């Protein structure tokens, strides 16, 4: 298992890769504790490189879900592979934790509502 954590658009992005087995879940729990000790309200897990996760890993995700819900935030999952997506559906974890097909859509879902711009708006140049 590898865990990469970065910030994007003010939100924490956690990229899980490889296998999250029971032994790995203990490390994931420790990393999660560190994340939750901060002020983060929304954490997005990029699962696009995740090949395997067992119930211990799912338990870690649910623990984050509960902690962030208490601070009116959310955890979101992005781009799970088909076997992982089936597992999330079978366990109904996907009923509690939103699953998005792309990081862009997940970021849109947690982005704060934007105030209307000035008349004429601004120009996004390239």
């Amino acid at each position, binding site marked *: 298992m590898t865990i990469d954590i970065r910030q994007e658009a003010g939100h924490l992005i956690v990229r899980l890769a490889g296998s999250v*087995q*029971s*032994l790995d879940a*203990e490390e994931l729990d420790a990393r999660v504790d560190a994340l939750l000790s901060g002020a983060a309200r929304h954490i997005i897990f990029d699962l696009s490189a995740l090949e*395997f996760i*067992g*119930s*211990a890993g*799912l*338990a*870690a995700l*649910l*623990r984050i*879900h*509960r902690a962030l819900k208490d601070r009116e935030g959310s955890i979101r999952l992005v781009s799970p592979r*088909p*076997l992982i*997506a*089936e*597992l999330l*559906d*079978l*366990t*109904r*974890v996907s*009923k*509690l934790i939103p699953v998005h097909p792309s990081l862009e859509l997940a970021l849109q879902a947690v982005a704060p509502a934007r105030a209307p711009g000035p008349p004429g708006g601004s120009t996004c140049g390239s």
Partner: protein
Amino acid sequence: MNLPADFGVRPSELTEIVIPNDLRSAREPERRILALLGSCGYAPETVFAIKLALEEALTNAIKHGNRNDSSKSVVIRYTVNPQRAVIMVRDEGHGFRPEAVPDPTADENLERPNGRGIRLMQAYMTRVCFNCAGNEVWMLKENRVSNPPGLPPRRG
């Protein structure tokens, strides 16, 4: 509990391995069984299912059955052929009643972090049998393309 007669293998086909009661040691039987699945040409989704069930059975044995007691051991017996994989996991604990484990997919239990292991074993394997005490589980996976029960057809 003996090997269930309808699992389609003979006791003499089973290989036994005894591991110390820790999660790191649990990697060895997994490595051996996954290697056999690969050599028998099992499809990735079937390998995933067996890996998941084995992971859950070993974790239950080490953490719940033997209660993380490092003086205890876990016994694994297994055989893999192109038609089926059979795996037994036994701990030294007092066991439990699988039917007493709350349904983790019920609305009231969804946020509970634990209790999914048994359900996953039953969903992903063809058959799962516990002994009367509940400290020994036999699992059968037939090598055929199928969906876990209760799931829509696979995408893609």
